C-alpha cells in the first residue's frame, strides 16, 4: 500500500494504482483524454501531466505507478503551464467546429479547453485535414477532430476483440482507421462513440438530432437480450433519441451491445397504435370497447382447456402475471413463455446463469454447449474475453465452429460429445475436472430441440461428474436470449396441470382442440400453425403475431412502461417509462386488467403497486430488486436418449432478433453491411 502526498494531502492507495487514480481517490480531478480505467494504459495525450518532486519534468500521471513517498502537485504553476501547453498543441489541428459537432455539450476536449485553453491561437500554418473513414452504419467519423488518444483502438483490440482499428502513418500524417476501408465487425462498436473524448466518432443514426441538454434522461434496463444491461434512455418529447449504457459492475460494466443501443429507431416504426378487429378477413381499426366485445364474445362460455396463452420475449413480468392470472381465472392451464420450445425445467438452477456474470471473472475453464455468446449476449462474451486476457483461461465448445474473439477448442457439434464427456470417454473432461472454477454454459441451441430435456439432464450429469458445482461455486449456467424468459419462469408462466406447452398449443390450434390463443408479444412462433384458432395479439409492433391475429390490442414497448425484468442470472431489475405509448396504446398490464372485466374475471389489482405486491406474493424473489438469489443444486432435466444432429445456434443475425430490431432501419443497415462483409470474405478466401 504505497503512501504518497498529493497537494499536501497524504493518500494511501492499493499497490498497482496509477498516480492519476490516486489523485482521483483523493477527490482531486486530473484532466485526461487517453486514460480510461477499463482500457490498457497508453499515456499518449499528455493532458494528465502533474508536478512530482525529484522529477525535473512534469510526469504523465496516468502512466506513472503510485509509489511510496511521492510528492505530487496537481495545481502548481508548473503543472498548470504544462497542461496549457498540451492543450495548445491538441488544439493546433482540432477544428473550431463545436457549433456543428454532435459531441458539443458533452465533449471532454471542450470542457478541458474551457479550463486550460488559450484565448487565441498562435499557430499560423494550415490545420491538417483528414479524410473521414467509413466505419459502417453505426459510427460516423469526422477524423479531423481526432486527437489520437487511441481509446477506440484499444477498445477494439482488447475489449471487443476485433483487431481492426489502428494508427497508421506517423507524426503529422498519423491517422486512426482500418487502413483498408470496411465496416467494423464488432457487436460492441457503439461503445467507441462513448469512449471518444472528442467528436471524431459520433453516432450515425443520432447525427444532428439533438443536443444533450435538450434530452430527458430515464434510467432503465435493456431488454433486447437477456443480459439486462443497465441503460439510460434519452428522450425528447415522444421520441426515444438515444440509449446509453449505465454503469453496473456486475452486469454490463459500462458497455452496451449495438442492438440495445441502436435498435431504438425501430420503436417509431410499424407500431400498433390502435386496436384492430378482423372483419371479413381484414384487420380493421376498432375502439377498445369493440375489441374487448369481440374477445368476450369468443371467450365467454368457452371451456378453459380450449384457451391458451403464449408470452413473448420482450414482455415484462407484470403483464405476464396479469395474463396468467386472467387465464387461470378462465380455467386454462395452457400457458407457456418458452416460444422457442426450449426444454427449460421448473427448477431454478436449471434455467439460471448461476455463476453470475461477475462470477466469470473467477472462472478458469468454460465449456459452451450449443451457444454462441458473441451473438446471444455480446456483453457476457466481452466478460469472457476480459477473463481470457487475464491469462490462465481455457474455453471449449460443443456446436458448430465459432469465433468468440478468444481461442475456443471445438470438441464436436452435437449431444453425443456431451454424453462422451459425461461418461468420461472424452479426454477434455480432465481439463474440466482439474479446474478451480469450472463453468458450463448451456445455450438455447442445446435446449430448444426435441431432445432438449435429455440434453439438459446430460449437462447436469456432466456438471456432477466434473464437480462443476461445489462449495461456494455454482458453475452450471443457462444462457438465455430473451429478456422475458427468466421472469416468465420465475412466476410460473409454464403449462399447469394437464396444460399444453407451445408445441402442444400449436398442435391443438391446428387440430381445433384449442380455440383461442392469446399472444402476449409473441412473434417468434410459427403462426402458420395456429390453424383456425381465434388469435388475440397484444403487443407493440405489427410483426408476425399481429399479422395473424383476429384482434390486435396495442401495448407498450419496453421504453414506454414501468416493468420488471429478470435477466439470465435471475437478477430482478426495473425498467422505467421514458415516453408514453403511441396513440391509443396502453401499458400491457392495464390492458389485461381492463379486459378481465368484460370477461367476468376481474383481476384484483388496480395499480402497479398492487400488481407488484401480487408479484411478490407469487414469488418473493421479485422483492429483491437488483439482487441475485442463488438457486439450490437439485436434479433437473429428463434423462433419455438424445437425438443426432448438431446443435443449431438460436441467433444467426445479431442485428435482427425481435420486433423492435426487425423494425429498425439502423439494424437493417447493419444486417446489409454484415452480409456484404460475409460475401466479401468468401470472395477473397475462395
Amino acid at each position, binding site marked *: 500500500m504505497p503512501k504518497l502526498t498529493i497537494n499536501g494531502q497524504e493518500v494511501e492507495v492499493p499497490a498497482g494504482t496509477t498516480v492519476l487514480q490516486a489523485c482521483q481517490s483523493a477527490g482531486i480531478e486530473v484532466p485526461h483524454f487517453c486514460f480510461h480505467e477499463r482500457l490498457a494504459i497508453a499515456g499518449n495525450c499528455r493532458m494528465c501531466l502533474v508536478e512530482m518532486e525529484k522529477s525535473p519534468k512534469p510526469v504523465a500521471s496516468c502512466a506513472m505507478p503510485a509509489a511510496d513517498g511521492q510528492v505530487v502537485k496537481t495545481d502548481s504553476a508548473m503543472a498548470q503551464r504544462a497542461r496549457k501547453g498540451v492543450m495548445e498543441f491538441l488544439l493546433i489541428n482540432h477544428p473550431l467546429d463545436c457549433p456543428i459537432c454532435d459531441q458539443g455539450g458533452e465533449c471532454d476536449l471542450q470542457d478541458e479547453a474551457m479550463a486550460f485553453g488559450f484565448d487565441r491561437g498562435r499557430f499560423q500554418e494550415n490545420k491538417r485535414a483528414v*479524410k473521414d473513414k467509413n466505419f459502417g452504419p453505426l459510427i460516423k467519423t469526422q477524423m479531423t477532430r481526432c486527437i489520437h488518444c487511441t481509446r477506440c483502438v484499444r477498445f477494439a*483490440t482488447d475489449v471487443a476483440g476485433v*483487431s*481492426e*482499428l*489502428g*494508427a*497508421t*502513418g*506517423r*507524426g*503529422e*500524417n*498519423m*491517422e486512426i*482507421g*482500418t*487502413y*483498408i*476501408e470496411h465496416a467494423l465487425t464488432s457487436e460492441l462498436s457503439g461503445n467507441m462513440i462513448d469512449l471518444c473524448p472528442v467528436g471524431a466518432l459520433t453516432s450515425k443514426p443520432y447525427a444532428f438530432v439533438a443536443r444533450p441538454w435538450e434530452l430527458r434522461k430515464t434510467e432503465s434496463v435493456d431488454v433486447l437480450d437477456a443480459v439486462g444491461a443497465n441503460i439510460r434512455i434519452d428522450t425528447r418529447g415522444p421520441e426515444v433519441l438515444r440509449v446509453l449504457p449505465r454503469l453496473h459492475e456486475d452486469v454490463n460494466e459500462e458497455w452496451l451491445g449495438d442492438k440495445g443501443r441502436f435498435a431504438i429507431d425501430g420503436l417509431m416504426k410499424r407500431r400498433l397504435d390502435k386496436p384492430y378487429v378482423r372483419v371479413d378477413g381484414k384487420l380493421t381499426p376498432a375502439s377498445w370497447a369493440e375489441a374487448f366485445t369481440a374477445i368476450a364474445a369468443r371467450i365467454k362460455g368457452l371451456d378453459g382447456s380450449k384457451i391458451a396463452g403464449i408470452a413473448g420475449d420482450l414482455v415484462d413480468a407484470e403483464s405476464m402475471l396479469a395474463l396468467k392470472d386472467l387465464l387461470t381465472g378462465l380455467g386454462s392451464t395452457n400457458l407457456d413463455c418458452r416460444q422457442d420450445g426450449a426444454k427449460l425445467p421448473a427448477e431454478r438452477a436449471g434455467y439460471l446463469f448461476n455463476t453470475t456474470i461477475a462470477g466469470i471473472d473467477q472462472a478458469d475453464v468454460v465449456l459452451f454447449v450449443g451457444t454462441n455468446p458473441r451473438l446471444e449476449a455480446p456483453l457476457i462474451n466481452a466478460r469472457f474475453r476480459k477473463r481470457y486476457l487475464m491469462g490462465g483461461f481455457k474455453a471449449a465448445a460443443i456446436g458448430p465452429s465459432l469465433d468468440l474473439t478468444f481461442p475456443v477448442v471445438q470438441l464436436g457439434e452435437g449431444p453425443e460429445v456431451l454424453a462422451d464427456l459425461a461418461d468420461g470417454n472424452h479426454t477434455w473432461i480432465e481439463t474440466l475436472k482439474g479446474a478451480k472454477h469450472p463453468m458450463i454454459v448451456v445455450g438455447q441451441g442445446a435446449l430448444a430441440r426435441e431432445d432438449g430435456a435429455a440434453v439438459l439432464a446430460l449437462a447436469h450429469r456432466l456438471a456432477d461428474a466434473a464437480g462443476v458445482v461445489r462449495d461456494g461455486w455454482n458453475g452450471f449456467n443457462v444462457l438465455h436470449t430473451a429478456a422475458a424468459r427468466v421472469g416468465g419462469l420465475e412466476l410460473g408462466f409454464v403449462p399447469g396441470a394437464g396444460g399444453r406447452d407451445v408445441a402442444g398449443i400449436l398442435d391443438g390450434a391446428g387440430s381445433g382442440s384449442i380455440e383461442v390463443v392469446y399472444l402476449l408479444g409473441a412473434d417468434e412462433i410459427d403462426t402458420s400453425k395456429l390453424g383456425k384458432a381465434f388469435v388475440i395479439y397484444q403487443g407493440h409492433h405489427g410483426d408476425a403475431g399481429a399479422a395473424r391475429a383476429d384482434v390486435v390490442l396495442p401495448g407498450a414497448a419496453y421504453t414506454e412502461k414501468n416493468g420488471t425484468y429478470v435477466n439470465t442470472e435471475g437478477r430482478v431489475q426495473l425498467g422505467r417509462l421514458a415516453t408514453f405509448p403511441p396513440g391509443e396504446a396502453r401499458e400491457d398490464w392495464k390492458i389485461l386488467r381492463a379486459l378481465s372485466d368484460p370477461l367476468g374475471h376481474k383481476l384484483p389489482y388496480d395499480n402497479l403497486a398492487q400488481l407488484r405486491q401480487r408479484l411478490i406474493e407469487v414469488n418473493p424473489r421479485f422483492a429483491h430488486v437488483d439482487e441475485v438469489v442463488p438457486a439450490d443444486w437439485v436434479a433437473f432435466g429428463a434423462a433419455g436418449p438424445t437425438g443426432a444432429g448438431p446443435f443449431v445456434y438460436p441467433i444467426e443475425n445479431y442485428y435482427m432478433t425481435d420486433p423492435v430490431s426487425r423494425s429498425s432501419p439502423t439494424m437493417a443497415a447493419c444486417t446489409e453491411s454484415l452480409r456484404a462483409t460475409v460475401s466479401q470474405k468468401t470472395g477473397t478466401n475462395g
Partner: protein
Amino acid sequence: MSGEHDDVVVEQPKSFEFTAENLERAKAIIAKYPAGRQASAVLPLLYIAQKQHQNWVPRAAMDYIGGLLDMAPIRVYEVATFYTMFNLKPVGTYFLQVCRTTSCWLRGSDEVTETCKRKLGIDLGGTTPDGKFTLVEVECLGACVNAPVLQLHDDLYEDLNVELTEKLLDSLAKGIVPPKGSMIDRQTSAPVGGPETLTTLRFDGDGNAA
C-alpha cells in the same frame, strides 16, 4: 512515402509469398524471438518482402507477414506505414534517396536534389514515366564526412556535386551502375588527396602496422 494513404488506390498484386530462400531467412529471424513474441520479427520480414518485391511492400505481403507472425493485418499496416523506409507503392528501378540533413545540406545537397529533379523531370516523391527512377529526400544517411551523399538501394554515392550527379544519372540511365562510394578520388573517408596524418605508418596487407 508512408503516411500517405493513397497507396490504397495503387494496383495491388493479388497474392504474395516469400521465395523458398527468403522463407528460410524469415524463419531464422522468427526463431530469434521467444515463442509468443514472434511479432517482433515484423520489421526484418517487411524488409525482406520489400527486397523480394521490386523494392516495395504490397498489401498482400503485409497480410502474408501478418499470417506468418500471427498478427492482425492492421498491426502490420501500422508498422509498415510508420517507417519511411518501407515503400507502399511501386518505385522506379533506381530508387534515389538524397540526404538533406545538416552536413549534406551545408555541402550542397540542394544542388544534388535540383540536378536530379532537372535531369529526371520529376519532383520529390515522383517516378519517371519510364519507371526507371524514383527520387526522394531523406534524413541523415550517416555518411556526413563524405557529404553530400545519395543512396541508391544499399549503396551510397558520396562527395557529389552537380557534374558528378549528372554523370551518375547518365550512367544509370544506360543501365550501368557505377562503383559505389566516393565519386572523387578519395580513399574511403580519408581526407581528399590522401592521408594527412599518420603518414609515416605503413600497413601490411592485413591492415596491421608494419
